[in-house]
């Protein structure tokens, strides 16, 4: 079985009124079969736009500079938009954050699910419906047969999101991308939906790329974690490695700041802010906030690699792990 996703050298520019900005730089990202990979970062990290780029869903002001995007074994770099359209929904599908606007309000749930299937597969309507009902039940939508005849507005936000997940799985894709799929949901519904998504991914053996900023979610979903900061990948490792032994100072900071149970004490944060977008960023983007910053951080930091771990820093593993964490109980956003 081929690898669901392999992206390398992805760079994306944005052309805005205020100028041209490099918003994603040189990102390598892959998802293996049966693997759950979490792409973590805060807003401004470029995680969402990277995933959108993989699916050619970029906004018009964005330009991806030639990169290799291999989906389910097929190199898509030189594919026409029309040929690529055949892949969307069939080999790769995406679950968006907002359940309100992702479903067509004038079609029933059943119609939308079946349409997805019939567009890409050669099968009868009956087969499509049977599969739809099966998937709806597996994502925890009770009375699935009845739900098929309902319209999106008759369902609550949480149920709509589950329908979106079922929709993503209809054509048995190799890769499912979830862009903060549960962030807009209530927290109890979020936990339930994640559970269903995880079970479904494991059962079907697909690759799941989950984009999130929530480390709690990451720790319970991910096999592998890719951390992004200011448009670049700064660290990658297995879930256990990242949480127990983070290397890059930013990852250290993130892990330290994620609130654990405590009844008192302030909240930790990494002082400073994500650097502004610019056309030609130079050196390590984290150096303004890094307690270990030194002179050579003004030059491009190398991507270091040790078996399954990768990190983009001038420090080697021992130095980085012994260095102080950037997390502070700080109040000030900036000096």
């Amino acid at each position: 079985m081929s690898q669901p996703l392999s992206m390398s050298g992805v760079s994306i520019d944005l052309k805005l009124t205020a100028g041209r900005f490099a918003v994603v730089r040189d990102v390598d990202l892959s998802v293996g079969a049966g693997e759950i990979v979490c792409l973590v970062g805060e807003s401004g990290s470029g995680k969402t736009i990277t995933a959108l780029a993989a699916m050619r869903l970029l906004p018009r002001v964005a330009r991806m500079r030639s990169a290799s995007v291999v989906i389910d074994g097929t190199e898509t770099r030189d594919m026409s938009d029309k040929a690529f359209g055949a892949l969307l929904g069939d080999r790769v599908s995406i679950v968006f954050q907002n359940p309100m606007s992702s479903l067509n309000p004038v079609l029933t749930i059943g119609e939308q699910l079946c349409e997805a299937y019939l567009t890409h597969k050669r099968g009868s309507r009956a087969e499509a419906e049977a599969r739809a009902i099966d998937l709806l039940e597996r994502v925890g939508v009770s009375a699935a047969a009845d739900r098929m005849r309902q319209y999106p507005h008759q369902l609550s936000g949480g149920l709509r999101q589950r329908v979106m997940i079922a929709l993503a799985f209809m054509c048995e894709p190799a890769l499912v991308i979830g862009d903060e799929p549960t962030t807009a949901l209530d927290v109890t519904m979020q936990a339930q939906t994640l559970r269903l998504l995880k079970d479904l991914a494991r059962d079907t053996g697909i690759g799941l790329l989950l984009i999130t900023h929530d480390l709690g979610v990451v720790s319970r979903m991910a096999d592998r974690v890719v951390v992004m900061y200011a448009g670049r990948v700064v660290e990658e490792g297995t879930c256990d490695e990242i949480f127990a032994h983070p290397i890059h100072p930013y990852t250290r900071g993130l892990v330290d700041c994620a609130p654990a149970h405590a009844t008192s004490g302030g909240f930790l944060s990494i002082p400073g802010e994500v650097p502004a977008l610019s056309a030609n960023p130079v050196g390590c983007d984290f150096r303004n906030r890094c307690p270990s910053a030194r002179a050579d951080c003004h030059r491009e930091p190398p991507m270091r690699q040790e078996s399954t771990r990768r990190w983009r820093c001038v420090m080697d593993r021992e130095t980085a792990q012994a260095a102080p964490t950037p997390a502070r109980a700080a109040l000030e956003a900036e000096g």
Partner: protein
Amino acid sequence: MKSVLEVENVTRSFAVRGQDGKPKTVQALRGVTLAVGANESVGIAGESGCGKSTLAKIMLGLDTPTSGEVRLDGAVLSGGSTRAFAREVQPIFQDPLGSLNPRRTVEQNVRLPLDAMRIGTARERAVRALDLMSKVGLPERYRHTYPSQLSGGQAQRVAIARALTPQPRVLVCDEPTSALDTSVQAQILNLLLAMRPETGISLVFITHDLIVLERMCERVVVMYLGEVVETGPTADVLAAPRHPYTRMLWRSSLTPEPGADLPPAEPGNAITPDPANIPSGCAFRTRCRHATDLCAAEAPAPRRFGNVTVACHYAAA
């Protein structure tokens, strides 16, 4: 202890038109009693449909309850006396950029309560605005900028500065950090924590995030579908939650623990019933794995267990 702000047995219903065009009644609040003392931090935990935002508006004087009383310093207030509320109770909303007037500068936004209530001279108001801007950590060079030039965290600081200008005694925060990045969240929460001893202000902190609430609030009130299901000192309630909903909420608050699993699947698809169609008896029974016929027949009365009050037929000590 004398409370600064209290609501007693407050209900609020809305008459709306359903999707089928027929009128229906949404019961946002069904008898909530809550008191906030001086220099106290009370957390209101709940998800959508529990009525927390409606409660917030009532506490701010922006809405009038259908029945029940709102009291400020013991005196009963009606929703019409916005000025009495405005001097003592101020809001922080969830969407930082949406809560600022996009066509006014930061300074003008911060000064709003003083300008609106004509407190002090123009010069005094400007001084106070700058003073508060620095207290919330916003550099002076942002004075004449517009909200669209600010990040979410900066905008929320402006909102906090604005709320503090009239020196209120209660700050009602409705999910103040939910729309912010984690590290910015931490900064804002630390700011609120640091402010308390300095100003003696009370906090009503509405959130669905029990992990944050644990550290911010001495007391917690858990709400579900317009009612209080459990309340008490935060440490006591969260150490051993008695109400099944509190337990569910607690388990769903995911701390980073690699290897830990997600909470178990729940019956009822985790759907909160429509507030226009609240289940009979105990409203939570449709999602509760321990529900019995009694739960459908009778609404549970609140019972005390030490410092904690719970509304469940089967809550045990």
